[in-house]
Every structure is written in structure tokens, then in C-alpha cells.
């Protein structure tokens, strides 16, 4: 992989979604539809303890009394929740002890996606948890990590291995009835990643989860729980793709992060779910609840996201700044093209003294798409000397798309300072002419300018992701300017 971030636009490939293939793997699925029986089926499949089944059923009962949120700047036909398969897993014959036992088709799938599950083949230090249609198929490097006391495994495995940790923290950041999609996930989540970094440990390698929707008619409902114990550090990356289908598939995930005293958790996402075709048919409905809590003093949680995929994106990675002097960050690039819709942003809830948050959001709209930033900054009475700075910029390519900014600022504290700035712009003809005159064609010039526009965010990404993200930006916008 190229290391120089300046190389990114060297070879821009064709604009088609290149992860749209489907792998024929023998699958085990739950019957379509959602009921208490479905939930019992999932829970039994995973051999879960009674308390977890109760957690699920409790969430399901709450979900039944809730309604889908309508406040976002999004439009889609009603989702038939009884028409979805809530559990699909590659059939496995027995417990996997080594990579040799993983279905070769699966390994091939991930190789095609550029994710190697074979540790020795990876040059860079990245541990991967690969999740396909709800189920974690392989976690690499977990043994290496275990020596330092780091637990990095699938969520189901964690339930078996460290149930007390899961029970202590799960649902504490995103309660099971937090919102409609969180309740749904809490009822039917199938798998996901779990990560615990012990006191004082700096995780030496990047941890990464790769999510893949493969089967048809399924929803993906994974759940990630990251706990940074006192004084620890971890950088965590998440990537995702799905096959091209003309139906809309639902993805409703939850990510919870807990940072204890002096801990730092950095969470990076490159979201590249199938966005649908040029006519707006198909694509993933991505309704995700991501939230972290800076529980201890001097803790820090940083979200970085590059959103290029999904037909619909509804997600607001948030930080509750509870510990004094804690820090929350949100860096986002969201690209929408064709008929994609994104309503995304962040919430920063300041509870502790001297807490500080930063929001940098870069929206890029093209085609017929709509791209909204929606965010909340709240300074509570206790949050003395809290600070927030938000910068939300929009770039429009073409005159048939929309770019919107909906910031909410609530301040109950006279010592806090909140600043919000936003601009909307387009790529000027002068900029294009200047690039053209240097011999750079228009498509490349747009890629170059867009990457420059997003640089502030892209530079927050780990190197392995940055290069990928920069390419994605260019590709996502191909054909957007006539």
C-alpha cells in the first residue's frame, strides 16, 4: 500500500462500486420477521446467558412502543420490519482454532476486499475482526494482544469469555431504549466487536473491524463495545461494504465507547456500504447510534468518519464529556452523490468542568443528493469553562443537490464558550482553469480540490485508512460534474 498521502490520485479507477460482488457461502439464517421467538432463536444460537436474553426482550418490548424518528432531512419508503432476516451466519462446522479452518470462500471474500485475514501477510500492525452478515468470522492478532491483557474479540466471544465486563458496560452509554434503531439493535444484535484495554496499556497496533453484508434480505445489526481503562490508549478502525442489490438493506448498529480516567480512544470509520445505483435504486439504509462517554477525568474520545456509502446515512457519533478536563472530537467528511441522502453530525454534551470539544464537518454534495449536518452542543450548568468549536462546511458540485446545516446550541453556563462557523461554497471556475492549465484534467482536478477541502479531516485518519479514504472520495464523485 502506498504510504505517501500525496499519491492518492495517481490512479483513479472506474467510478463503479467495486465491492458489489456476492459470495456464495453456505448460510444459516433465521426465518424472516421479528418476534420474541426470533430473539430467543438468536440468543439460543449464541448460547447466551439468561440476563442477555432478558436485555434483548426488554429492548424489543420497548421498541414495540416506539415510532421511527421523522425529524431528519431524509425521505424513504416505509421499512417493513417483518420482511427482514435478522440472523444470517456463515455455517461453520466446528470451533475455529486457526485460519486453516475458515471457509476458503470467506478468506477469498476478504482478500477481494483487500482485507487479509492471514497475519503473516500483513505488513502493517493492524489486528482485524472480520464480521460477515452478523457474525464475526475471524479475529487476527488476538493472541499477540492477549499477552498485554488486551481483549479484542467478537462480541459473542466476549459474552462467553468476559461476561462480567460485558454486563457492566453494555447499554450504559446507549440505553436499550435510546432511540428506535438502538432499541431494534438491542433486541436483535447478532455480533460485533469487543475491545478492552487494561489500565495503563497503550495498544501497540491499530484494531480494526471489517463489516460485510453478504446475504440477501438480511439486516445487519452489530454491536461494538470498547472500554479504555484508566490511562490506556487505543486506535480503532471500522470499514464496511456490501454487495450491489436493488433492494434496500437495513443496517442498524450500535457502538459504545467508555473512556475511564486518562484514557484515550480514537475511533475511525470509512463507511462504504453500497450506495445504490445512479437512479437511486437499492443501497443500504444506515441507521447507526454511536456514542462514547468520557467517564473519567482527562479522558479523550475522538471520532473520525469518512462517509461515502449507503443510500441513507443517519448517524451522530457523540461524546458525553462527564469527567473534568475531558476532550471530545468529531471529524467528518460526508460525500453524497446521485440520490444518496445523509443526515449526520455529532452531539457534544458537556457535563464536566474545563471540558473541550471540537467538531469539524465537511459535507460534499453532488448529483441529486442531499447532505445535512445536524449537531448538538450542550453546555450544562456544571460544565464550568467548557469550550466548543464547530466548523461545518459544505461544498456543492452541481445545481441539483442540497447542502444543509442544522446546528443546535444550548448553553446553560455563563463561563462556557461555544463557537460555530459554517460556509457553503462550490469549486470555482478559476480553480478548475488553474488546474487545467497545469495539465490536470477536470475529473482529477475535482478529486484534488475535494481532497484538499477535506484534508483537515483526512489527516486525522490512521495512515492505512487515509489512503483508502482519499481514493474513495475521488471515486464517489466520479461522473458528478458534466
Amino acid at each position, binding site marked *: 500500500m502506498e504510504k505517501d498521502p500525496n499519491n492518492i490520485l495517481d490512479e483513479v479507477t472506474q467510478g463503479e462500486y467495486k465491492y458489489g460482488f456476492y459470495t456464495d457461502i453456505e448460510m444459516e439464517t433465521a426465518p424472516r420477521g421479528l418476534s420474541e421467538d426470533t430473539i430467543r432463536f438468536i440468543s439460543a444460537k449464541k448460547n447466551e446467558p439468561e440476563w442477555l436474553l432478558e436485555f434483548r426482550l426488554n429492548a424489543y418490548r420497548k421498541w414495540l412502543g416506539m415510532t421511527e424518528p421523522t*425529524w431528519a*432531512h431524509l425521505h424513504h419508503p416505509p421499512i417493513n420490519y417483518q420482511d427482514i432476516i435478522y440472523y444470517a451466519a456463515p455455517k461453520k462446522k466446528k470451533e475455529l482454532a486457526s485460519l486453516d479452518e475458515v471457509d476458503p470462500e470467506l478468506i477469498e471474500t476478504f482478500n477481494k476486499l483487500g482485507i487479509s485475514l492471514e497475519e503473516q501477510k500483513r505488513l502493517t500492525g493492524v489486528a482485524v475482526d472480520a464480521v460477515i452478515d452478523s457474525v464475526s468470522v475471524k479475529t487476527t492478532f488476538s493472541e499477540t494482544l492477549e499477552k498485554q491483557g488486551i481483549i479484542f474479540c467478537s462480541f459473542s466471544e466476549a459474552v462467553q469469555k468476559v461476561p462480567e465486563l460485558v454486563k457492566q458496560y453494555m447499554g450504559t452509554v446507549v440505553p436499550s431504549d435510546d432511540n428506535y434503531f438502538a432499541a431494534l439493535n438491542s433486541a436483535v444484535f447478532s455480533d460485533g466487536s469487543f475491545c478492552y484495554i487494561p489500565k495503563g496499556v497503550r495498544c501497540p497496533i491499530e484494531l480494526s473491524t471489517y463489516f460485510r453484508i453478504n446475504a440477501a434480505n438480511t439486516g445487519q445489526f452489530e454491536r461494538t463495545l470498547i472500554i479504555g481503562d484508566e490511562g490506556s490508549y487505543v486506535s480503532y478502525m471500522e470499514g464496511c461494504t456490501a454487495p450491489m442489490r436493488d433492494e434496500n438493506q437495513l443496517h442498524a448498529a450500535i457502538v459504545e465507547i467508555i473512556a475511564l480516567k486518562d484514557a484515550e480512544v480514537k475511533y475511525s470509520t470509512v463507511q462504504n456500504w453500497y450506495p445504490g445505483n445512479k437512479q437511486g435504486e437499492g443501497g443500504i439504509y444506515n441507521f447507526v447510534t454511536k456514542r462514547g462517554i468520557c467517564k473519567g477525568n482527562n479522558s479523550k474520545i475522538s471520532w473520525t468518519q469518512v462517509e461515502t456509502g449507503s443510500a441513507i446515512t443517519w448517524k451522530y457519533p457523540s461524546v458525553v464529556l462527564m469527567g473534568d478536563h475531558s476532550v471530545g472530537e468529531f471529524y467528518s467528511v460526508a460525500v453524497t452523490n446521485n440520490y444518496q441522502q445523509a443526515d449526520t453530525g455529532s452531539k457534544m454534551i458537556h457535563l464536566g468542568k474545563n471540558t473541550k470539544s471540537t467538531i469539524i464537518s465537511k459535507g460534499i454534495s453532488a448529483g441529486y443528493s442531499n447532505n445535512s449536518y445536524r449537531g448538538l452542543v450542550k*453546555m450544562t*450548568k456544571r460544565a464550568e469553562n467548557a469550550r466548543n468549536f464547530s466548523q461545518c462546511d*459544505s461544498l*456543492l*458540485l*452541481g*445545481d*441539483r*443537490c*442540497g*447542502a*444543509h*446545516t*442544522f*446546528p*443546535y*446550541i*444550548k*448553553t*446553560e*453556563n*455563563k*463561563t*462556557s*464558550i*461555544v*463557537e*460555530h*462557523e*459554517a*460556509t*457553503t*461554497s*462550490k469549486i470555482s471556475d478559476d480553480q478548475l482553469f488553474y488546474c487545467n492549465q497545469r495539465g490536470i484534467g477536470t475529473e482529477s482536478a475535482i478529486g484534488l480540490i475535494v481532497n484538499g477541502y477535506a484534508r483537515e479531516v483526512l489527516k486525522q485518519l490512521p495512515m492505512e485508512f487515509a489512503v483508502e479514504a482519499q481514493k474513495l472520495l475521488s471515486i464517489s464523485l466520479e461522473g458528478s460534474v458534466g
Partner: protein
Amino acid sequence: MDQVGSLNALNTGIMDGTTTNYNTREALLKLFDERIAGYALNDSPELTAMRREAIAGFASAGFPHTKMEKWRNTDLTRVLNHDFKFPEAPVMAEVDLEEIFRCEVPGFDTHMIAQLNGWFIERGAGLSQAAQGVVVCSMAEAFEKYPDIIASHYGKYAPVKENSLSALNTAFAQDGVFVFVPDNVEVNEIVQIVNLVHSADPVFVQPRNLVILGKNSSLRLVHCDDSVDDQVGFINAVSEIVLSENARLDHYKLQNKNDRSALVNNVFFHLEAGANLSTNAISLNGGLIRNEVYVRLNGRGSHADILGVYLMDRDQHIDNQVFVDHAVPDCTSNELFKGILDDQASGVFNGHILVRKDAQRTNAYQNNKNILISDKAVIDTKPFLEIYADDVKCSHGATVGQLDSEAMFYLRSRGISADNARMLLMYAFAAEIVNKISIPQLKQRIDDLVKKRLRGELSICDQCVLHCNSREQKVSFEIDMSKI
């Protein structure tokens, strides 16, 4: 809400034919059914139809409530929960107009007209340019005398579907101020509307104003909302203001209400090509003030400056809602609202710029700056941008903070007391808006009022109105800002 009580009172009201209680949807619908026949005697068929459509709009929505996105931070429950009377005719007897108009701005020569409890009060002197066709009269008179203008403009800008208070006003409106400026006329006199509420009982008043500026005309309009006493009141005002091609309007709202009053002010501006609007809302006092300003830039090259400053304390509530609709290309708008909140005061700013598809070469700016000076003051600010065209320059900003501690230190190091330094900085903060007032005497007057307000003089007075006896008192707060 006390429904039985209000319904009983409703019956009483009907018996004496003058007043009724007025605070629930049901009571109002019933009242409408009883009144519409009477209204129809004077109304045109179109107006009657408009009232019916409006009451249907109000019936389906009811009073705004905090579950509605636009009303999340402004709760009307408390201010509606009174046994309101509904003044069906002007009551002149108890009011000494001369006393009321003692508050006139010194040297501020205006053509002043008054509204009392929503009813226009004839004060005799006509406008000097009446001969050129400039009309300033009551809405009731306008309905009679200018049916053509009414037919083409009245109710054409205030929606009765999305805005239930505007609908309620449309359903019941009886009077207000009508201003008409013909094409190519520049009105020399400043027109000042003083909107007073004075009653022994809680009153619910619904003034309705229509201002039409012809092509290439210009007007300066100052709109004052004052209380004469400390009685409870609810004003639900609607103004429709039309700027024809290349018309210019310099518009001010000066709000100085008592702490027990509620004021909801819906103003709908409609700008045709090349029109230029400057509107400035100065809110100095009031229990609950909500200004909803809608600006539709409907013709190319039109421009709007939408400004506001608010200084609130105790448990006052100020809510500014600004919707700027860039409907066509080549228009510009500029919004700046600044506020200082003390004690338990709460503030809301909700700015929304919409740039419609094809409204290319739009320039739109929006800014809201706030200072909180107590631990209990709260501000909610939402500067929204909704953009569907690509060749635009839009930006917005919002800040909440406190007085700049470095500036404080600097002033104190020059020997200025902490209190005075604080006041100076607050004054400087507000002055950015005050300095944009283009009528010198008005600017001077408001400058004085802001200083007084910051000194706490208006706040100390429980019955806090402009014409308090401190009028003769010399303003002692004089520091030359240019020297620091």
C-alpha cells in the same frame, strides 16, 4: 387549562356582547362560530372565506406547543393560562393619550399613530403627503375604502396552514394599521406606530397590519410595542409588508413590554426585484417576546438586512425566529442578532436560510452572538442553512460566551471599576446593532435606552415602560468609546 371556567366566561361574554375569555382552542372555535355571521356583515365574501380557512387551520393545529420543533424552547402554556378578555371595540375613556405619549423620542419628529388594545386610534393630524396618495389609516377603514388593494395583498403572505397563531389572527382580526405608499413616492415623515395595551383585565389582542410600498417608493417605519400598566396581556400580532420593485423600507421594532405580557409578532416581508429592506428588532423588556420574521426575496437583486438586539433579565424570555427565503437568483441577505441575558432570562434564536433550487448567486449571511452574564441564564441557538443551489455564498455563525476577560483586564488596568468595565463591554457588544440605526434621533434614543437598561434602571422598575419618570434624568453613563 381551565376549560370550564373559560366556557362559563364565554357565555358571560356573549351576554354582554363585548368581552369573552379566550385561551383554549375549543372556546375560540365556539366563539368563531358565533361571531362569523356578525363579521360577515362588514366583510367581503373573500374575507369571510379567508377567516373560515384560517379558523380551520387553527382548529387542526391548536396553539403551538413545545412538541413542535419551532416551539421547543418557547412554552406558551403559562402565558395563555389567564382569563383573557377579547376587546371587541376600542375603549378610550380610561386612557390619557397625552400621558402615554410623553415617551416620545425628543426631537424625533414622526407621524405617530397609536393602536390601543389592537384598535387604531384616530389622532387627528393627517400625513403631510396625503395629497400624493400616501395613506395611513386603520385596517377597518382600509377594508372599506381600498377593497382592490386589500383583495390583492391582504392575507396573501401570512400562511394560515403552517402557522396557527397567524391563522388565529386572520380568523379574528378586526383592526390595525394600514399604510400605502404609491409608486415613486418617498415618504419624508417617519411613520411611528405605537402599539399599546391597557386594560383592567387580562386582554388578548390581535392587531393586524398591512404595509404596501409601491415601485421606487421609500418609507421609514418605527413600530413600538409598549405596556401602559403591568396588567397581563397577550398580543398576537400579524403584519404583512410588501416592497414592490426597487422600494426601500427602513423598519424598526422597539419592544418594551411589562414582565407579565406576552407578545408574539409575526411579520411577513415580501420583496420584489431590486427592493431593499432593513429591519431591526430591539427588544429591551418583556415577559415573553417571540418575533417571527419571514423574508421572501421574490425578485432578483433584492436585499434584506435583518438585525436584532435583545437585553433580557429576571425570568424574561426572548425568541427570535428568522426565516429568509431566497426564492430567485441574485439576492442577498444579512442577518445579525446579538443578545445579553442576565438573571434567569432565557433566549432562543432560530435562523433559517433557504436557498431554493436555481436561486444562483445568492449571498446569505447569518450570525447570532450571545453573552450570558448569570449562572441561570440560558440560550438556545439554531442557525440553519438549507441550500439547493450551488453557486452561492452562504455562511453562518453562532457564539455563546462571556465578556472577554482580556478586555476586562485591560479596562480595569486603566482604572475603570469592574462594574463599569463590564457595562462598557456589554454596551460595546450591543452597540454594533444600535449603530446600524440610520435615523439619528432614534439611534440616540435607543442608545440611551440600552445604557439605562444595562445600568439596571429599567429592571428595577417593576412597571417597566418607556415613559417612566426617569425621563428627565440625565444619562450619566458617558464614556467615550473611541478613547479606550
